[in-house]
């Protein structure tokens, strides 16, 4: 084999390894963000159930439960955003929220439940509690369309991780020095995922918040560069 052919082959193999690492990178992003979403759905449902139980047993009033549900829900949302990947966080921040205040929610729910034009302060205590209970229940709901879409993406993410794993297994199985090949695959894939997260975070700083396309490109480039770098220096 000539020196030029060997260099070409090495560059080609590095490029293929970079691609493999970016498959793992994309899979890890999807899996992490989907897991964060499932956790969010579980936590808000649990929060609403606990507040409902507390109000039902008389430990707190229904008005307090509604107030706490509103506040806790926002805290959980912020925590989950923090646990998402830079791409997931950019997706979550891409549109300014315009939520309702607790008073707006109370007025709206009262009208939905007892008819247009009804005033909350004209309701009986039991009716008011029913309105508060509905606000607690609604705080425990996430948008099912989003949750279902994220569950599908979770499957796609696992699929990509499986493809990446299968490619690594093939590479190790066909290598002469299997131990060295295995260590190299682990290093390249790890660098791809870590580089992707770092690249996404850097792109987020450069492009500003709520720019998911820029952050996704940053994550892809970061993953590819990190994998390519490790592959070249190995």
């Amino acid at each position, binding site marked *: 084999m000539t020196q030029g052919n060997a260099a070409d082959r090495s560059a080609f193999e590095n490029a293929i390894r970079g691609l493999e690492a970016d498959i793992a990178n994309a899979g890890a992003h999807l899996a992490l963000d989907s897991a964060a*979403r499932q956790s*969010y759905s579980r936590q*808000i449902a649990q929060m609403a159930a606990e507040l409902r139980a507390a109000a039902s047993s008389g430990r707190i009033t229904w008005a307090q439960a509604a107030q706490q549900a509103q506040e806790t*829900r*926002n805290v959980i*949302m912020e925590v*989950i*955003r923090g646990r998402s990947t830079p791409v997931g966080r950019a*997706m*979550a*921040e*891409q*549109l*300014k*929220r*315009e*939520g*309702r205040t607790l008073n*707006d*929610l109370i007025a709206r729910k009262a009208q*939905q439940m007892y008819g*247009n034009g009804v005033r909350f302060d004209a309701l009986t205590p039991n009716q008011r509690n029913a309105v508060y209970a509905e*606000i607690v229940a*609604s*705080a425990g*709901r*996430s*948008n*099912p*369309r*989003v*949750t*279902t879409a*994220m*569950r599908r993406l979770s499957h796609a993410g696992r699929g990509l991780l499986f493809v990446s794993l299968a490619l690594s297994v093939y590479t190790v199985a066909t290598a002469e020095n299997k131990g060295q090949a295995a260590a190299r695959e682990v290093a390249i894939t790890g660098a791809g995922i870590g580089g992707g997260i770092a690249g996404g975070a850097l792109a987020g700083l450069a492009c*500003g*918040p*709520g*720019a998911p396309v820029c952050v996704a490109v940053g994550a892809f480039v970061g993953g590819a560069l990190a994998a390519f770098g490790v592959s070249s220096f190995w």
Partner: protein
Amino acid sequence: MIHALPEGAVTLRRLPVAEDAGPMAELAVKGRPVPQPVPGAVLEAAFECDGRTLLFLTDDVPHEDALQVHLLDERQQLLDSATLSSMYSTGSFALIGMEPPRSVRFRFFGGTEWVVELLDEPAVRLPLISEPRGVHRRLGFTRHFKVHGQPQPER
């Protein structure tokens, strides 16, 4: 010319759905049932324009709400739909007003005023790139209304 439908002209019945499915509603416009259920749970506003009916529904998920925009033809068949939604974000519908001859201006999320403009003829659209951020449609290449807006990120 666009005009608002009077209260009670559109009736909505929420349909039972699976826990992981989005809310669906059965509608009737001026007593005539809409043949197919549509996504959404709460009717926010309804308009009529040249025989077509423009409906705004929300999903009734106050902390992560979505706005469903549906356009029906003269026979109450669903012509076109769009959804305004974003993960971990929410909006609240506030009608600003009608803009004759064929537009409606409102707020929902994104710190911007949105406009839905009905088109005389279906126009070509390209999936993913023809809509502002936060506006989603089914895969397809035509639209009967445009959604205008310049949504802002959270910070």
